[in-house]
């Protein structure tokens, strides 16, 4: 069959057809990309909004429910940039994002204190859990505190996968080691430098322990040979805040859009959606809405 496609004319025709086809399809594509504009969708002056958030927030799938709702309601086009917490906060500090949705309060404090983040509000929380193989070499299953469990893991030199990437999860993990007065080092303590999903895959593959947020674990559970061994402690709460990047420090930020997004996240309807998320996919709520509460009041 290929022998027939040899004449110069045929090839030129093929080329022309291909180019026209691609352009036509691309053309169709681009006219569809502007979000479906219902008659009542407002059109803000600057419709582009850069939301810096974390990979685990994106991986949970929550944003895929919330962002389209926000876009439809307000007419903004959100550019959700999901990077590690460190990078998200760094973007805020350079004014490269308009609004932040992050979950490392101890790291965020610096930005709040130096006025980089304003309109800083508690949005929701979920929790971290310590997972590991069913064989549980360090015998941490059922321990009441993570510090106890960390001590047991270190003592038995059981393999532990750390994110090692300044993410919210990593920050939480480091703080727990500090609480236990331990400095983890050695071949058993492995820093993956990868996202939560990847780290879980590695932990499962090497039958090792790791700290993970419950949402990512539940979403990946079907592929993992790990179980939840320690959970429920107040110290293991994973707390999400939303905040605008200060327009006084960075005049180029889209402050109307950022404000609209903060308001949206705190809106009772959105909070309800947050509370329902996950019930139909993994059988339980993955996030607990907290708008209006104080961070210190959270805890079981």
């Amino acid at each position: 069959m290929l022998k027939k496609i040899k004449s110069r004319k045929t090839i030129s025709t093929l080329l022309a057809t291909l180019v026209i086809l691609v352009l036509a399809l691309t053309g169709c594509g681009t006219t569809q990309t502007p979000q479906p504009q219902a008659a009542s969708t407002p059109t803000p002056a600057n419709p582009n909004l850069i939301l810096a958030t974390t990979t685990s927030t994106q991986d949970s799938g929550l944003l895929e429910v919330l962002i389209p709702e926000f876009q439809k309601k307000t007419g903004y086009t959100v550019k959700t940039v999901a990077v590690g917490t460190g990078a998200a906060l760094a973007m805020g500090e350079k004014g490269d994002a308009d609004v932040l949705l992050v979950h490392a309060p101890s790291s965020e404090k610096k930005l709040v204190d130096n006025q980089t983040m304003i309109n800083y509000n508690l949005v929701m929380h979920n929790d971290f859990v310590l997972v590991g193989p069913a064989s549980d070499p360090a015998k941490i299953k059922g321990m009441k505190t993570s510090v106890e469990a960390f001590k047991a893991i270190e003592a038995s030199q059981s393999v532990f996968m750390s994110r090692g990437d300044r993410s919210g999860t990593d920050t939480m993990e480091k703080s727990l080691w500090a609480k236990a007065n331990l400095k983890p080092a050695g071949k058993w303590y492995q820093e993956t430098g990868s996202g939560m999903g990847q780290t879980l895959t590695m932990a499962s593959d090497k039958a090792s322990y790791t700290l993970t947020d419950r949402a990512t674990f539940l979403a990946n559970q079907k592929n993992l040979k790990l179980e939840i061994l320690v959970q429920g402690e107040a110290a293991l709460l994973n707390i999400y805040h939303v905040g605008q990047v200060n327009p006084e420090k960075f005049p180029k930020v889209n402050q109307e859009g950022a404000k609209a997004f903060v308001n949206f996240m705190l809106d009772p309807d959105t909070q309800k959606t947050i509370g329902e998320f996950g019930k139909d996919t993994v059988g339980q709520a993955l996030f607990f809405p907290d708008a209006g509460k104080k961070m210190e009041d959270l805890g079981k």
Partner: protein
Amino acid sequence: MEMIGQGILAAFHLLLTGDPEVLKITLLTLKVSGTATFISLLIGIPLGTLLALKEFPGRQFFLSLVNTGMGLPPVVVGLWVSIFLWRSGPFGYLDIMYTPIAMIIAQAIIASPLVVGLTSAALQQTDPKLRLQIKALGTTRLQYLWLLLKEVRFSIMAAIIAGFGAVVSEVGASMAVGGNIKDQTRVLTTATVLEVSKGNFDIAIALSIILSLLAYFITLFLTLLQQKKQGA
């Protein structure tokens, strides 16, 4: 093994049902990588020709830069382009960060050294007697260059194929300057990374199959163009 089977099934399903999300992602991949390759040709062939045929001070140094550039890691290109295009950067006012345009720029930067290097190498290999012969025919400068390029068209086509292959498969630059934003800057490679990180290995495998098929058919097309017999 089961996962691979599921992945292949998922690929067929996505292709046959014309899943709109996958279609959008595939078209964007074609648009971004195709445009970037095209730009790299516009930059690369003239530059490669210049480098091959003109003697100038620092030529060797420049050539070595180009050759190093062929191995430029896409993630490094992504980082550097980000630094320039972020709001905090010198070109932030253009507001093109996290758009396909930024991705095209980054990918053009990745592909250009390949085109320059391969074009230059091809032309340098032409027989100086041949070049003299063409000049002796009384050609204008442009005609001379055109005939010379025609002489090495196989290598030029190889340069195009190499350039396209490099950019359609890269993920570091696309992720950094595009942001993998759904419906805006998500391409096949970045979508695959996302599905892997979410643990949806079957979908990731399906996307990788689609990407491979896309790359294969384009490359097949270009190869056929390259291999067509003279004066057919």
